[in-house]
C-alpha cells in the first residue's frame, strides 16, 4: 500500500522482537465475539490515477462559481483568496503539525497564531482573541456560555436578523447550557433599539449581526447601548471583510465580537472547513473557550510564544473547563491572517468600497423593488414577482445563480431574493444578472 512502509522482512523482525508469531496474536485481547470475522464491506482500493479520476468526476457534477455566475451569499461569500495563501497551505510544516503543545517545536505556528489574535483584536477593537472556534455558529454558542458564566443570568437575546443558522445552533446548545433563548423581531429589516431594550431586561447577553442577514446595516451602536443599559453583554456578530469600513464593535461598547471568518481567506468549499473568530474585552479572558497563545521569554530571555491560560481548558480543568474544544481551525485562521496581511489596511478598505459600490449599482440596475429601506453593505434583498425558488431554478438554466431565497428561513419572504456582491463580481456581471432576471421574471 502506498502509505505503508513495512517490508515483509521488517514485519518478521518486528514480530520476533515482540515475541508473537502473527499480527493476529496482537489482537487476542479483543473478545472473539466482538471481532469482525469478514472483510469490511467497502468499495475496493483505487490506485491514485483512478482515485483522482473518480473524485474529478464527482467534482465535475457540482455547479461551482467557475461554471455558474453566482450571487449567493447569506453567510458565505465568494471573496478573492490571494495566491500567497497557497504558500501557507502547501507548507507541510503547517499542514502536518498539530496543536503546539511543545513550544520549542512549534514557534512558527505559535507566532502565527499570536499574529492572528492581534489582527482579530485590531479589527474588532477588542482586547483578546482566541486561536479560533469551529465556525460562525459555534462561536456564538461559546459567547453565550461566557456571558452566562460572567453574569448570573440565564437568558440570551438574539436578533431575528441574526443568521438563522447561528440562532439555530445557539438554541441547540442552550438546553445543555441551561440558557433561555429569546428572539427580537425586526422592523423593516433591522432591530429597533427600543424593542431590544425591553427584551434585554435581565438578559446575560444580546447578540445582533452587523451587517445583518438581510444585508442591512443595523443601528449597531444604539443596539449595543440598549443592551448595556439593561446590564446585558452586547455581542456583535460581524464580517471581518466589512471592518475596513464599518466601526469596530469594541468602539461602540460591545463586550464580545464573533463571526464566521470564511469571507477572509477561505473559499466557499460547500460550507467548510472555515473558522469562527472570538474576541472579547480583557475581563472575559479567563472564561474564554479555546486555545490562546501568549508571549513570554525563554531561558535566554529571548521572545518566544506559548499556549497559555490553559487552566481554562479541558485537558487541565476537565468538567470545570470553559469549553470542551480541542482540535480547532488553526490552519484556516492562519489563511485569514495571510489574507489580511496581503490586503493591509488599504486593501481591506478597498474591498469594502468595491463591494459597497457594486451593491448600490445592483440596486439600481436590477430595477426590482427593495424589500427594506435600510442602508446596505454587500448584500441586498429584492422582491420578485414570483417565488424566489422558481426564479432561481429558471435563472440557473441560463448559467446564473441569482442569489439566496430568503423564504428558506423566513416563510413570509417567499418572493424575496438576497443578492450578494463581492469584489469578484463586475458591473458587467450585474448587468447580466439584470438581464437574466428580466427574462425569467
Amino acid at each position, binding site marked *: 500500500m502506498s502509505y505503508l512502509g513495512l517490508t515483509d522482512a521488517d514485519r518478521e523482525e518486528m514480530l520476533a522482537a515482540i515475541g508473537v508469531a502473527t499480527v493476529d496474536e496482537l489482537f487476542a485481547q479483543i473478545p472473539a465475539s466482538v471481532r469482525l470475522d469478514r472483510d469490511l464491506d467497502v468499495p475496493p482500493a483505487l490506485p491514485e490515477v483512478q482515485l483522482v479520476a473518480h473524485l474529478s468526476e*464527482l*467534482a465535475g457534477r457540482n455547479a461551482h462559481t467557475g461554471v455558474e455566475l453566482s450571487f449567493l451569499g447569506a453567510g458565505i461569500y465568494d471573496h478573492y483568496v490571494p495566491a500567497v495563501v497557497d504558500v501557507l497551505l502547501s507548507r507541510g510544516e503547517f499542514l502536518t503539525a498539530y496543536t503546539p503543545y511543545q513550544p520549542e517545536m512549534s514557534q*512558527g505556528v505559535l507566532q502565527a497564531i*499570536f499574529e492572528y489574535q492581534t489582527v482579530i483584536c485590531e479589527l474588532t477593537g477588542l482586547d483578546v482573541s482566541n486561536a479560533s472556534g469551529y465556525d460562525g455558529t459555534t462561536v456564538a454558542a461559546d459567547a453565550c456560555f461566557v456571558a452566562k458564566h460572567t453574569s448570573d443570568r440565564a437568558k440570551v437575546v438574539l436578533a431575528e436578523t441574526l443568521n438563522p443558522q447561528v440562532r439555530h445552533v445557539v438554541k441547540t446548545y442552550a438546553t445543555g*447550557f441551561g440558557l433561555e433563548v429569546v428572539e427580537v423581531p425586526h422592523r423593516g429589516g433591522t432591530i429597533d433599539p427600543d424593542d431590544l431594550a425591553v427584551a434585554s431586561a435581565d438578559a446575560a447577553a444580546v447578540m445582533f449581526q452587523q451587517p445583518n442577514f438581510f444585508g442591512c446595516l443595523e443601528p449597531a451602536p444604539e443596539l449595543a447601548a440598549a443592551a448595556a443599559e439593561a446590564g446585558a453583554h452586547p455581542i456583535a456578530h460581524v464580517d471581518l471583510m466589512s471592518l475596513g469600513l464599518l466601526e469596530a464593535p469594541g468602539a461602540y461598547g460591545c463586550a464580545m465580537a464573533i463571526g464566521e471568518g470564511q469571507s477572509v481567506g477561505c473559499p466557499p468549499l460547500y*460550507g467548510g472547513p472555515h473558522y469562527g473568530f472570538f474576541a472579547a474585552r480583557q475581563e472575559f479572558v479567563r472564561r474564554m473557550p479555546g486555545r490562546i497563545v501568549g508571549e513570554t521569554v525563554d531561558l535566554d530571555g529571548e521572545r518566544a510564544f506559548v499556549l497559555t491560560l490553559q487552566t481554562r481548558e479541558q485537558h487541565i480543568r476537565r468538567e470545570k473547563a470553559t469549553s470542551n474544544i480541542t482540535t480547532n481551525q488553526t490552519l484556516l485562521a492562519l489563511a485569514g491572517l495571510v489574507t489580511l496581511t496581503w490586503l493591509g489596511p488599504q486593501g481591506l478598505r478597498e474591498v469594502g468600497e468595491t463591494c459597497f459600490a457594486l451593491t448600490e449599482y445592483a440596486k439600481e440596475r436590477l430595477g426590482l423593488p427593495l424589500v427594506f429601506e435600510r442602508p446596505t453593505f454587500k448584500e441586498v434583498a429584492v422582491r420578485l414577482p414570483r417565488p424566489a425558488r422558481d426564479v432561481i431554478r429558471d435563472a440557473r438554466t441560463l448559467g446564473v445563480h441569482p442569489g439566496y431565497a430568503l423564504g428558506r428561513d423566513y416563510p413570509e419572504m417567499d418572493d424575496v431574493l438576497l443578492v450578494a456582491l463581492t469584489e469578484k463580481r463586475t458591473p458587467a456581471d450585474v448587468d447580466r444578472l439584470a438581464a437574466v432576471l428580466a427574462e425569467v421574471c
Partner: protein
Amino acid sequence: MELIFEKSRVGRRAGRAPDYGLPKPELPLELRRTHPPRLPEVAEPEIVRHITALADRTFGVDTGFYPLGSCTMKHNPRVNERVGGLPGFRDLHPHQEDEGAQGALELMWRLQAILAEIAGLPAVTLQPAAGSQGELTGLMLMRAYFRDRGEERDTIVTADTAHGTNPASVTMAGFRLERVETDARGNLDLDDLRGKVNERTAGLMLTNPSTLGLFDEGIEEVARIFHDAGALLYYDGANLNAVVGISRPGDMGFDIVHYNLHKTFSQPHGGGGPGGGPVAVRDTIESYLPAPVVVRDGDVYRLDHDRPKSIGRVRGFAGPFGVFVRSYAFMRAYGPELREMSEVAVLNANYVLARLKDVYDLPYDRICMHEFVLSARNLKREHGITALDVAKRLMDHRIHPPTIYFPLVVPEALMIEPTETETKERLDGFVDAMRRIAEEAAESPEVLKEAPHSRPVRRLDEVRAAKQPVLRYLFDEHPALVS
C-alpha cells in the same frame, strides 16, 4: 524572529481590490470606522518570506517522527490535497441548490456509508466539526432519546483514564459526571462500575482501546451493565485507528460513536485543526440526528432538513466538506485493506513497546494496541529526570515528543503512538534515542534538564506567560511602525 507587524511600513502593500469606476456611495456617519485597523503593511515578497520562515520554525509529520499519543499523527497523502482543491469542490457555495451539488452530496452519502460500515451502526451525521463536538452531539442525542421516552436521566459515567474533553462535554451538555476506576489490568473496574450505574444513568462515555492503549477486555460485560440499566454507550473514536476492520464499536455494544477524521482518516492536523467529528448511531437514535442529513432518493441525492425529532444543528451547513473530500479519498485509496492500516499501527506500537519496556516503567504490562503509555517514574526516582525532560531531549534528536502527563492515572506518563505510516528505520531511530536518553539520565542529567539544545528557542517561562498575559502585539511599544 520579527513579527509581521515589525516588518510593516506605512504605505507598503500587496493586495488591491479592483476599482470598477463606480460612484462611491457614503456610509451613514455613525457606522463608519473611526480608526483604521493596524493591519501589517507588507509587500508580497516579505509576506512569502515570513510564511517560509515561520514554517522553518515549525515541526510537522513531514519534518520527522511525531509519536504524539492520542493524536494519530500519520502521514497525510498528498493526493488528498490535490482532490481537495478541485474547483468543483473548492468553489461550490453551500447554499447551492441540491441539483447543482449532486457530486458533493454523493460524496457525503458514500462517506456516510463507509463510516457506518466501519462503526457497525446504520446512521451517520457528518455535521460535527471535531471529536469534541461529536461528543457533545452524542450527549445531546442521549438527552433527546430519553426525553422522548419520558425518562429522567442526568448522569454520564466516564473512565478515570478519559480525555479531558469527555468530562468537559458532559458539563456542556448539562449532565452530572460519575467517574469509574481502572483496574489493575487497565480495564474498567467492573465492581466499581456496577455500583455507579442506576436508573439515573444516561450512559457511558468510553474510549476503546482506552487512552492507555489497551482494549477493554470486559467490554461485553460493560455493555450489558449499561443496557440492562436502560442506559446507552458512547464510543469516543479517538483511538479508532487501532481497530478499523478488526472490531466495530457497534458490535462491542456502543450505541453512539464519533470518528476523528483528522486522526484515523488522515485529514491534516493543520497546526491545531481543522478536523471532522461525524457521529454514527443505532437506528433507535437516528431520528434525533442533527439536520440536515444527506439522503438518497433513487439516483438523486439531497439534504433532508425535515427532521422533526432532530436535536437541531450543531454547526453551519452539513459539516466540514473539505475534510470529507480528504477522508473519503483516503478510505478509497485503502478499500477493505483499511484493516491493514490498523494492523500495522498496532504492530508498530508493540514493536516500539517491546524495545523500550526494559528501560522505562510499563504500568500495565500487556500487548498494546495502536499506542502505549510508559512512565518515566523510574528515571525520576533514580535521577530526578521527569517525563518533561525526556520530551525536551527528544527534540535534539529531531523527534517530536510524545504526549506527556496524560492519562492522569499514570505518573510521569509518556504516551507514544507511532502510527502505521512509519518505517522500521524511523521506529528504531526513536527507540535508540529513548534508550540513549535513559542512559544520559544517569550519566549527564543536566544535559536533559537543559534540553532542548538545538531548537530556535530554549525552554520557556510558561508561568510568566500565564501570570502577565501578553496576548497580542503591543503596538504602542513600537510607535514608529503604526500607520
